[in-house]
């Protein structure tokens, strides 16, 4: 048993030595994207960023209360000197969510279309979701070392299952008779997907996006252990040095952006659903 463990570890280290470089190259665009968004959020005047974020929340939710809450929360964050860390965290969560969506939706579609893919991938997702989040950090760090990119990879692995699951579920839940109608009118597989399945699954997919954002946010804090900067790091410091107030303040900032993300995406999902609910029997 011990030999086996040593063997696997050794093999993994060799793999890392051989391919680590190439892999890092491959993931370099992520680094660029992350730097770009981070730069934009941090270097622009805070007024512009505040207005832009409030505007975005308005576009998603069309709800003034949520917008007002966003503005107050961001002002408080700025007042207590956590602006830069918050922006880093928002950039990180945005990039991770984007990547998770880009990967998750196609995989979800594949699972919805093929029962075999569904049967293969489902246990994988179960495993990914039950594994303690720290464990992801180990192989990622071994390959990529410390830094933002390994952070993003770990976060995406941790946060991608809900969007996959809910895309799959959303497509499978499309009423059979509506799909049959599309079929009867001579739709191709692609037309069915784009015209009927995805639009009708969209509210469910949005619920997946919402969960993915929440999980990214949680994981970003954990990922501060491998050098991801942002609101997680002060928390980590606070734990190590028993700075109670520092920990609580940053914790509250994380909660605040979590609530903003959550309310905005949920309100958007609700708006999408407006025409899907039966009013008439």
């Amino acid at each position, binding site marked *: 048993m011990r030999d086996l463990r040593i063997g696997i570890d050794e093999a993994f280290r060799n793999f890392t030595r051989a391919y680590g470089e190439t892999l890092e190259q491959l993931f370099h665009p992520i680094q660029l994207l992350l730097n770009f968004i981070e730069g934009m959020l941090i270097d622009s005047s805070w007024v512009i960023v505040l207005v832009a974020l409030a505007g975005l929340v308005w576009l998603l939710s069309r709800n003034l209360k949520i917008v007002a809450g966003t503005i107050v929360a961001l002002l408080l964050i700025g007042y207590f000197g956590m602006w830069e860390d918050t922006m880093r965290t928002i950039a990180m969560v945005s990039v991770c969510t984007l990547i998770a969506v880009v990967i998750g939706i196609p995989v979800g579609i594949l699972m919805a279309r093929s029962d075999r893919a569904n049967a293969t991938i489902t246990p994988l997702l179960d495993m990914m979701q039950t594994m303690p989040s720290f464990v992801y950090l180990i192989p990622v760090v071994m390959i990529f070392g410390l830094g933002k990119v390994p952070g993003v990879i770990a976060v995406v692995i941790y946060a991608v299952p809900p969007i996959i699951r809910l895309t799959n579920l959303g497509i499978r839940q499309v009423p059979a*008779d*509506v799909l049959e*109608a599309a079929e*009867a*009118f*001579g739709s191709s597989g692609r037309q069915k997907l784009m015209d009927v399945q995805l639009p009708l699954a969209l509210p469910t997919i949005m619920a997946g996006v919402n969960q993915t954002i929440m999980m990214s946010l949680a994981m970003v804090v954990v990922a501060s252990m491998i050098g991801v900067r942002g609101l997680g790091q002060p928390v980590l410091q606070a734990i190590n040095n028993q700075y109670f107030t520092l920990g609580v303040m940053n914790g509250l900032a994380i909660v605040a952006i979590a609530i903003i993300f959550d309310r905005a995406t949920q309100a958007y999902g609700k708006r999408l659903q407006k*025409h899907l609910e039966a*009013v008439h029997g």
Partner: protein
Amino acid sequence: MAEATHDIEIRNLYKIFGPNAAKHVESVRNGMTKEELKAQHNHVLGLDDINLTIPAGKIQVVMGLSGSGKSTLIRHINRLIDPTAGELLFDGQDIAKMSETELREFRRQRTGMVFQKFALFPHWTVLENTTYGLNVRGVSRREAEERARRWISRVGLDGFEESYPNQLSGGMQQRVGLARALTNDAEILLMDEAFSALDPLIRTDMQSVLLDLQSELKKTIVFITHDLDEALRLGERIAILRDGKIIQQGTGEQIVLRPKDDYIASFVRDVRRGHVISVRTIMRKGARAETPVTLPATTLLEEAARAMTNAEVLRANIQGLDGQHLGMVTLSKCVAEMIAPDDSEDVDPEAQVA
């Protein structure tokens, strides 16, 4: 405008549901019943040797109780369900043998379908729903909308173009379903219990809408229903299904007049026979009576009986469309047929007295 010119000919069609369907066709051909197939092989017999010619430009009704195979049958015509064996001939082609591309073209160009639960696209407006068939075909948006608006107006939904399905009542939703199918301008219209989910009054309304449209469009309509009144009102031809088999086909009048077995008899028991059967079908051909009353051949029994009692006579002569003499009926035969199928010889009451 696609006026229908081709019959749909269904030949020896079998459908068995289950993983080894093809293997069991032979046993079914040799007389295995639905129950036996279920019990011995756990396969479901959906359709059992269907032979049916659906005439071009007519309304063919398929009637039967729930589970008799009506939906299965109509879904073979646009092959939403693949047959286990048999042919579906239309315009020189076997629908059962079409490739995927041919089938898609066939569905797009030659068929439209209306569903029991409407099956509208809930995320689209009435107009967007109605243009769907044309969009799929790649017709330009402007032309599609223009054509769709015409049909929306034709089914009486002017002003609702921008509404969403969930804002409409059931009857209005099915008007959208009808407009969506008609906008395709196809010669075959498939309607699977299209009006069954509607309230009785709205249902009668929709039947009128359909008959009105059909008098102008002359499409080949396959209309599924479990309701005899609806079948008799709409169907120029009626086929009755039971356990996946057609047990009788003909005009409504023929079926009401002479139900082939007890099952059908129980179906037609509550029909106002005098309201469905015409004197033509019960008259004594060639005979002539001494009576002042002469009726057209299409006169219904109720009307004929009323005409005779009003004139206080017991017999009436029957004439064809252009006035030629066809035969005669007696009041007693009329009344007997109104009450129940009557196979007794039509005896002339006057003759008995004399």
